[in-house]
C-alpha cells in the first residue's frame, strides 16, 4: 500500500551493505591468505609501483574517476529524494473520461472534509489525513487521537461506517486503501481549549 519508501530504503541499504561486505571480505581473504593463487600473496604491499604510476601515465584516469564519482553522487541524491518523498497527492482526477474533459479534485479539500468530520465526533480529539501514492489510485493515511475514556469500539465503528464511506462517496471510489493510526490521549484540556 504505502510501503513504497520502505522498499526504496531497504533495497538501497541491502545493495550498499552487500558491496561493503563483499569488498571488505575480499581484502580480508587476501590478508588472511585464504587463497594465494587467486588473490595474490598476503605479504605483498597494498599497491605496486606500477599501480601508483598508472594515473600519471594515463591521462584518462582522473576524468573517468570524476565521472564515476559524479554518477555515484547523483544516484545517492536521487535515492535520498526517493526515500524522503511522502508522495502526497495534491490533485486527483475524479472522472477519468478524457473525451469529455476531466474533473480534478483538490486533495486537501477531501482530507479537510474528513478531518473536520472526525473532529466533530464525540470521543475524537484530533485527526489528520493525507492521500498518498499515485494520483489515480491513492491511499488514505488517517491518524486519529481518541479520548482514553471513550469507547474505542464505538469510535472505530463511526470512523469505518460513517467518515470513510463519506470520503469514498466524495472521491467517487468504491474502495480506498486506508491505514488508520489510532492513538489515545487523556481528556484534560478538551473543554478548556
Amino acid at each position, binding site marked *: 500500500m504505502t510501503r513504497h519508501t520502505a522498499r526504496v530504503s531497504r533495497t538501497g541499504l541491502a545493495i550498499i551493505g552487500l558491496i561493503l561486505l563483499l569488498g571488505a571480505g575480499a581484502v580480508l581473504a587476501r590478508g588472511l*591468505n585464504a587463497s594465494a593463487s587467486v588473490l595474490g600473496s598476503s605479504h605483498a604491499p597494498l599497491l605496486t609501483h606500477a599501480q601508483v604510476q598508472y594515473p600519471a601515465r594515463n591521462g584518462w584516469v582522473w576524468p573517468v574517476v*570524476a565521472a564515476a*564519482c559524479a554518477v555515484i553522487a547523483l544516484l545517492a541524491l536521487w535515492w535520498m529524494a526517493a526515500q524522503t518523498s511522502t508522495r502526497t497527492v495534491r490533485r486527483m482526477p475524479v472522472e477519468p473520461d478524457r473525451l469529455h474533459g476531466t474533473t480534478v479534485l483538490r486533495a486537501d479539500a477531501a482530507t479537510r472534509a474528513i478531518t473536520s468530520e472526525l473532529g466533530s465526533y464525540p470521543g475524537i480529539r484530533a485527526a489528520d489525513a493525507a492521500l498518498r501514492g499515485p494520483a489515480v489510485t491513492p491511499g488514505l493515511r488517517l491518524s486519529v487521537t481518541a479520548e482514553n475514556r471513550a469507547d474505542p*469500539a464505538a469510535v472505530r465503528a463511526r470512523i*469505518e461506517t460513517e467518515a470513510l464511506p463519506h470520503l469514498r462517496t466524495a472521491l467517487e471510489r468504491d474502495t480506498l*486503501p486506508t491505514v488508520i493510526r489510532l492513538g489515545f490521549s487523556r481528556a484534560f484540556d478538551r473543554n478548556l481549549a
Partner: protein
Amino acid sequence: MSDVASAHDDATVLLPPGEQPRPARSGAWSRPGPRRMARREFRPRRTIPGVLVAAVLAAAGIIGCIWAASAALGHPLWNVSYGDFAGPMQTTAHWDDTRTLAIAAAVAFVGLVLLLTAVLPGRPRAVVLASGDDSVIVGVPRRSLRRSLGWLAVEVPGIDSARVRIRRRSVTVRATTRLRDTAGLREGVRAVVQERLDALDPLWPPRVRVRLRRKRE
C-alpha cells in the same frame, strides 16, 4: 485451499470472548495472508539509516568528483603527499598487516549491519487491529497503547501507578498500590485492561498479565 478454510475456523475460535457488541470484523482478517500484510504496514521503514547512508555517499561522491576533476585539469585542489599515502602503500603497508585487516573487518561489519537493517523485518511500531473492511488497516501505536492501558489501570481505585509492557503475545501491567488489603486489585486491573483490549480487537489477541507490588509507607 482446505487448510485456508480450517485456519479461518481456528482463528475465529481463538478470539477472546467479549460480552459487549464489537464492530464487525472483516472475513479477511481470519486469513493469515491479509493479517501478515497488515502487520507489515507498521514495520519500520528504515528511512533514517537509508537517508544517512545516502547522505554519506552523496558527500563522498561530490568531494571525490571535485578532487578528481581538479586533478584531471592538472591542479589538484589538495595534494595527497607521496609520503603519507602512495609511499607507505608501496612499502610498509601490507595485505596481512593488523591495520589493514582491522579496517577491512570494520568495513565488513558496517556492511553486515546495513544488510541486516535492510533484510530484518523489525518490530512493528503498532498493534494491528481487525477492521470491518479488508481495505482498511487499523493500528494502535505501541507507545500510545502502553500509555492508554497505564491510565486505565491507574483509574482502578487503590492503584497508585502502573507501567505497561507490550510484547507480541502478551501485555504485562506492573502496578503498585499502598493498600494493605490487595484482594481483588489484580483482578480489577486485569478486567479493565482486558475490556479495553477486547474493544480494540487486535488481530493477535495478547494475554494480559498483572504484577502487583505493595508499596510500603
